């Protein structure tokens, strides 16, 4: 399959809790990115992690990458209702870019 896989497909949490999403892939990658998409809108780039990096932080976001397991995780800490969106991982390889299937996150106020 050309797509990476994400789990869970859907996640519902209470405001203030942490949300963790995972992404797995099959090919070798140059870098991996996480995106957010609000319903019906374009993608917003959140964070990029290169294949030689293991962890990156940006505000309330923490991304890890394990190239031996071909997986990445996105952690959103202290979630807010405004974090409600779909989150995708995207992977850059040779001439191609593939996306995960996405995780729909719902944060309840």
């Amino acid at each position, binding site marked *: 399959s050309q797509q990476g896989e994400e789990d869970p497909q859907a996640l519902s949490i209470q405001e203030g809790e942490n949300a963790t999403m995972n992404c797995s892939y099959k090919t070798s990658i140059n870098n991996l990115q996480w995106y957010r998409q609000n319903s*019906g809108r*374009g993608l917003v*780039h959140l964070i990029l992690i290169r294949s030689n990096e293991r962890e990156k932080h940006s505000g309330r976001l923490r991304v890890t990458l394990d190239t031996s397991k071909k997986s990445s995780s996105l952690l959103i800490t202290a979630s807010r209702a405004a974090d409600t969106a779909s989150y995708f991982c995207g992977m*850059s390889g040779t001439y*191609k*870019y*593939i*996306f995960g299937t996405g995780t729909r996150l719902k944060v309840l106020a």
Partner: protein
Amino acid sequence: SQTIHQWPATLVQPVGSPLSLECTVEGTSNPNLYWYRQAAGRGLQLLFYSVGIGQISSEVPQNLSASRPQDRQFILSSKKLLLSDSGFYLCAFDSIRYGYTFGSGTRLTVV
């Protein structure tokens, strides 16, 4: 700075009508260009990518085609739309420094 323009933002077309979505980029030369589709409730699916003028690779067999008449112009077309062509279409290009840049997307509804 690098920017990407995609239009129109929304489009409602009858079954059997033609389609043309256009995407242009600025601030970079010889970019890799991509068209994606997101069907309702699903992840993004790569439709076409292009590494240069006139070079188009198709990832899935379908009712759509793509063309790249100029270095920074990428067009998605169909001669006759199907109901199943409804979805959210995204154009994108990539750069070594900034990774991926997406257009704002086109929501196509075929009726």
